[in-house]
């Protein structure tokens, strides 16, 4: 069944006028201080704090991510109901000093179509010097114009555009919750990618971990990834 999963080739982004407008609107929203309830940092000391969120889109669907409302709550719609779509949001916390760090998110979906659910959410975790050493596949960040597409499918071939990851100056990992694994009978719903700089996949086991099955629309999916000393997540 996994062979029937269509995958859209990842091509370099051609920035369109509409994407520029969308990005400018989003970025201006950050600059002028509009409240962004979806991203925050829990500070365990006064030297750790968040940057504004940085958004990136995909070549085929430059209108995403986009703000929306779910159950009366402001939310960030990352993808449309379309194959080959991907998008994301990134931010940083200053003052990392080697302590355990986690990234926690709540997500959902409200519509589904076609082959069902895939490829879910992916959490990417970096630790690196400087604040400007990531590259994104849009031009919303001055001096960091992309496009950089790093990654690819997991070792099992399941992961789709969730394999897309940014360029980086230090090693990092990403963990993807992919509900499509349930549809192909896998006991695990996760993909792991370990990336060496700038963009080399050194490991990409797939179908690992455990499963929550197929959540229904409007279910809240709580996805937490923790990195602890000793290189365990």
């Amino acid at each position, binding site marked *: 069944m996994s062979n029937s*999963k269509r*995958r859209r080739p990842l091509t370099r982004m051609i920035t369109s006028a509409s994407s520029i407008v969308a990005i400018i609107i989003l970025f201006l929203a950050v600059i002028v201080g509009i409240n962004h*309830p979806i*991203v*925050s940092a*829990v500070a365990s*000391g006064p*030297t750790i704090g968040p940057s504004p969120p940085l958004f990136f889109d995909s070549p085929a669907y430059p209108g995403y991510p986009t703000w929306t409302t*779910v159950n009366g*709550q402001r939310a*960030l*719609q*990352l*993808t449309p*109901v379309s*194959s*080959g*779509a*991907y998008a*994301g*949001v990134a931010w*940083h*916390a200053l003052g*990392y*000093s080697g*302590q*355990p*760090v*986690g990234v926690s*998110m*709540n997500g959902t979906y*409200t519509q*589904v179509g076609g*082959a069902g*659910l*895939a490829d879910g*959410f*992916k*959490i*990417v*975790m970096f*630790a*690196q*010097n*400087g604040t400007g050493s990531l590259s994104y596949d849009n031009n919303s960040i001055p001096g960091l114009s992309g496009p950089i597409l790093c990654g690819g499918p997991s070792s099992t071939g399941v992961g789709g*555009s969730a394999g*897309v990851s940014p360029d980086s100056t*230090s090693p990092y*990992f*990403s963990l993807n919750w992919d509900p*499509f694994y*349930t549809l192909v009978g896998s006991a695990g719903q996760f993909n792991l990618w*370990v990336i060496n700089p700038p963009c080399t996949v050194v490991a990409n086991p797939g179908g690992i*971990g*455990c499963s929550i*099955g*197929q959540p229904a629309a409007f279910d809240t999916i709580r996805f937490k990834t923790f990195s602890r000393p*000793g*290189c*365990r997540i």
Partner: protein
Amino acid sequence: MSDLTSGTNCSFSLGLSQYGFNIPSPGNYWAMIMGANGGGYADWTLLQAQIIAERATTTGVSCSGNALGSTCTATVSDPSPRPPLTPTGTVTWSSSAGGTFKPSTCTLSGSGSTASCTVVYAPSGNQNPVTITATYQGDSNHLGSVGNTTLSAPP
């Protein structure tokens, strides 16, 4: 469509070093969250996200007395070089020989980067030696940790 039982939980851990990953040098911490549709179709939507930076802790155990009965203190420390943040929360106790701890869970108190709490241990048998283990559960800022010590019976 849905086969999800409400409240379904799934957690697992991975040793990243087996995949060639080592924690990079300290600096800034970045997080990125993506939604993706390879061949499936859903409007993946982010409701909330955060970076959680926890501090590591160490737990030390010291006891007065011996394997026949003892008063034990757990000291939880935050070794972070950043401004001190006192560990809070509770410590649970266990013994290799069974027995009772009063209270069974103690609440930390302290200041600076260190906090402690004390319990009284009474064994249920004559095992010798006895390992006393204190488990700090962690709090919203601190990761949990475990410490132990060994008690011997008097000669």
